[in-house]
Each structure stands twice: as C-alpha cells, then as structure tokens.
C-alpha cells in the first residue's frame, strides 16, 4: 500500500474538531508552504482567468473557497451561506483529496457521479488541468510545514494508514466470504444476456412491422 498517502479518516476527524479560525490559519500556512515547493503550479494558476471555486466535502461541516487566477492564490473556509462562487465541486473528502493529488481520474469520477460539478464548467476544467501538471503529495507538504516534529508525525500517520488498510482488507474479505455467490451470479448473468439478446431480436422484428405499417399509411394518403 502507498505509505505517502494522507490518512483520510484521521484528516476528517481533525477537520471536524479544529475551530474555523485555526483551520484558516492552517490553510494559509499550507498554501504558503506549497508555493515554495511547487512554484510552477502557482505560476500556472496565476496564468488562468480570475475565478473562485467552492470545494464542498460532503462529509465535513465546512466548505472551502479557492481563489486563483490573475493574482495570488488563496484557500479559506467559506461563510455558511450567501457566498457565491463561479463554480462548485462536491464530493467525499477522500475523492477530493485523491483528485488533488492526481491519484484518480476526475473524468472517471464524473462518469460515475462520485463528484458533482456545478456552475462554470470551464473554471473547473482549467483548475483540474493546472493541478494535474504538478505532482502534489499533500502529506509531504503538510509534514514539511510541521518543521522538526514532521518525522515522528509522519511515522504515526504511516502507521494509521497501515492500520486502516488492514481493517479495510479484512472487512472486504469478510464481506466477500459472506456473500460469495459467484457461481449463481455467472448463471444469472448468462441468462440475462440471453434474454437481452432475445428482446433485441423481438424489438427488431417489431420495428420492421412498424415501418411496414407506416409505409402503408403513407401510401393510403
């Protein structure tokens, strides 16, 4: 398993308990740190048209506003109501983080509706493409921000990750054991495919009759 990944459950818990003012201070520091590590990314962001994007993790009490283009980039929490952005990206925190780090293809999440985009699609596309030009490892950036305690913190995080992965795998295995009906499923799938073929053939024949009927109507006129 990938050890340099930010443990999402931990992040989720942390983000839920950290007061908003502290959170804003942290995001400010994070952006500043990232500017040092990824100068190219911020140059590219500055090349874009000015825009604000609301990032809405569906499993968090906060929304974030990312401002970029034609000036400095900023990230802060959004006021609860009455704030309008050019576009919004909604999804689980994990999906959004995977997206940021380029682990997962955003079009795929879009096809499967894991993330939902509203507002000015062009803004989101520009942001996505610009982020994807850069290798971002959020965990590295965050631990770099922690200074001297970064190494011990990293070790804890890696251990948490391993633990979470272990739990996930055993739950998955248990689930599969409990519901292993592979044999039945194959038979059912085959039956389904056969029926679909049959329906298709019937529809096809019906269509031919319909056309014949239409033609007779037309010539009767």
């Amino acid at each position, binding site marked *: 398993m990938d050890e340099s990944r930010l443990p999402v459950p931990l992040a989720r818990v942390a983000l839920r308990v950290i007061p908003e003012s502290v959170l804003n201070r942290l995001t400010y520091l994070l952006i500043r740190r990232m500017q040092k590590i990824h100068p190219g990314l911020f140059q590219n962001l500055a090349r*874009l048209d000015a825009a604000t994007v609301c990032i809405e993790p569906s499993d968090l009490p906060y929304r974030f506003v990312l401002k970029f283009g034609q000036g400095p980039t900023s990230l802060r929490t959004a006021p609860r109501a009455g704030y309008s952005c050019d576009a919004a990206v909604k999804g689980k925190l994990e999906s959004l983080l995977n997206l940021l780090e380029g682990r*997962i*293809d955003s*079009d795929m999440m879009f*096809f499967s*509706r894991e993330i939902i985009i509203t507002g000015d*699609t062009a803004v989101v596309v520009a942001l996505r*493409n*610009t982020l*994807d030009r850069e290798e971002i490892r959020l965990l590295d950036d965050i631990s770099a921000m922690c200074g001297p305690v970064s190494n011990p913190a990293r070790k804890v995080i890696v251990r948490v990750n391993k633990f979470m992965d272990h739990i996930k795998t055993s739950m998955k295995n248990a689930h599969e054991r409990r519901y292993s009906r592979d044999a039945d499923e194959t038979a059912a799938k085959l039956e389904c495919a056969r029926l679909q073929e049959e329906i298709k053939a019937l529809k096809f024949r019906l269509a031919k009759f319909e056309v014949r009927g239409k033609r007779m109507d037309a010539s009767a006129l």
Partner: protein
Amino acid sequence: MRSSYLELVCPAGTPAALHAAVAAGADTVYCGFRDCTNARNYPGLNFDMDEMIAGVTYAHEHGCKVLVTINTFPRAGQEKSWHQAVDNAAIAGADAIILADIGLLDYATRSHPGLRRHLSVQASAANALSILFYREHFDIKRVVLPRVLSIEDVASLIQQTEMETEVFAFGSVGPMSEGRCFLSSYMTGLSPTHEGVCAPASHVVYQDDNHCIKSCLGSVTLNKFSKDEPAAYPTPCKGRYEANGRTSYLFEEPIGLNAVDILPQLKAAGVTALKIEGRQRSRAYVSKVVGTFRKALDDLAAGTQTHGSGDLKTMAEGGRETSGAYKKGWR
C-alpha cells in the same frame, strides 16, 4: 521488425502526463501546443515552447518518440499561427507532426520536407483513394484511421495502400466523420475545426434539477439523467434526443471504446500503431490505461493470453465499453 510490433501511441496533455506515459511504457507520445492549433485546446492543458523542448528531450532520453498534433483547420487570414506551430515542432525536435488541413500539409511539405508527416483522424481519410491522394501530394508516412471502420475495412485499406496505419484502441466512440462535424458549433457558435474544442467547457452547464441532472450545451438541453445514472461527455453526439416518438441516445450511448480484447485481430490486420485517446484526461488515467495496454501488448508479443479489459471499465466514458465500429453490426 516493425510489422510484428504494435507501437503504443499515448496521450500527453501536460508535461506530467508525458512523464506518466513514458513511465507506464509508451513507445510514442503525442501532444500539442497551448493554443488553437490542436484539437484539444482546453484551458490549462498542453505545452508551451519551453515545455515542448523539455518534453521531447525527456522522451528521447527514455527511448520514446514524440508526435506533435497540429490538426485543426487554420482560419482564413490567420494561417500564420499554424505555420508557427509547424516551425516550432520542427525546432523542438518532434519525430513527426500530425496534420489534417490540405493547405497546412502543403506548407509543411515545402518548409520542412524532412519532418515526418502523419495524416490526422480529422482529415477523415476512410478509403484507399483518399489515403493515396495525401501520400502522392504530401508524402504522408502514416494515416490515423477514422473510428468508423470495421476490422475488415482496416485490413482491406492496409492491403490496398501498404500504408502505415494508426488506429484508436481506447477512448471515445466517434460516431461522426471527424473533422467534418459541425454539431458543436451549431449549438455554441465555437468551431471545433478552428478552435480545437468540441463542446467547450465555457458553454457546458449542469443543473441540479430535483433528483435529476440536466446537462446543457449553450441553450440546448443535451440530456436529463438521474443521479445514479452514468454520465457521458456533454457533446452533441452523446445527448438524448426525441425522434419518431421515442427518446433515446440517437447517435451514441454513454460508452467508451476499448479494443484491448481485439488486439490479435488488429495485429493480424497489419496495423502499425495503437492510439490511446485522452489528452484531456488526467495523468492517473494515462498511467492506468497505458500500463494496461503495455501489459496486453507484451503478453501478445510473448504469445501469452491477454487478461480481459475488466480493470479499464471505470476509466471508460459512461463506465461502459464497446469495441465500436471494429465489429460489424455497430453501424
């Protein structure tokens, strides 16, 4: 040697994607400049001149070729930018350029006779006569075949022309003859043939409409779908329409093209190269799809069984796959 080896041609929308493609086992990558001279002119995508030079250098150091795509049609009075792109590709050290416009092919042939020319899918050369025309007039070395042909058609074309061919192996199912489809400009006023963008994001709007999502291109409603229904790209040919009293995906379903299961047939047909589409996709997509095809091609070369396409399904448009026009009955 070449005839028994299928070359894997991979998309690089950004320098990061180029690195990912090289790492995943691409034989060749293709990319474009950051302007309307290529058919994937999306915001934030593509290469400026410095990035192009660095990209070509990096690829060459790793034994990988670079094709530069200049496959839109220059607008009257503005041909200079397209000529510049051809010149820049030559300066950057590209191994070939991919072109579609007759005037631009003529320019490249006269100005850079030594730079290999490939015929883009946008030129829609779907028969032997057309291919011979482009070869006789512009000495093209390879043709990218339109996605409207069956495997039998492809084999017959190769036999008739003895031309190097590149065919689409993964990406979109393009139901229309490419380079000659004006549906997107009909709905938005922006032309893919000149601007290099079909269904420009600036004109795409998703509306959350009570348990249902509505996708619009400009003022035209393309589709309404429930929240758990798979989505397609918001292009006019992937919308739902009502005709003859029925509402359906009249042109094409939300489905992606995947030819991984028919690689042996493509090889037998005499295809030179396989093209993975997706310069607009992320580097995660590039790694995954290129990696899968690399393995499948290596298995094919070694004579071992290819393991199905199961793992690419999530990457495909609409989360579903087809072998498209390659198999008869599609049309």
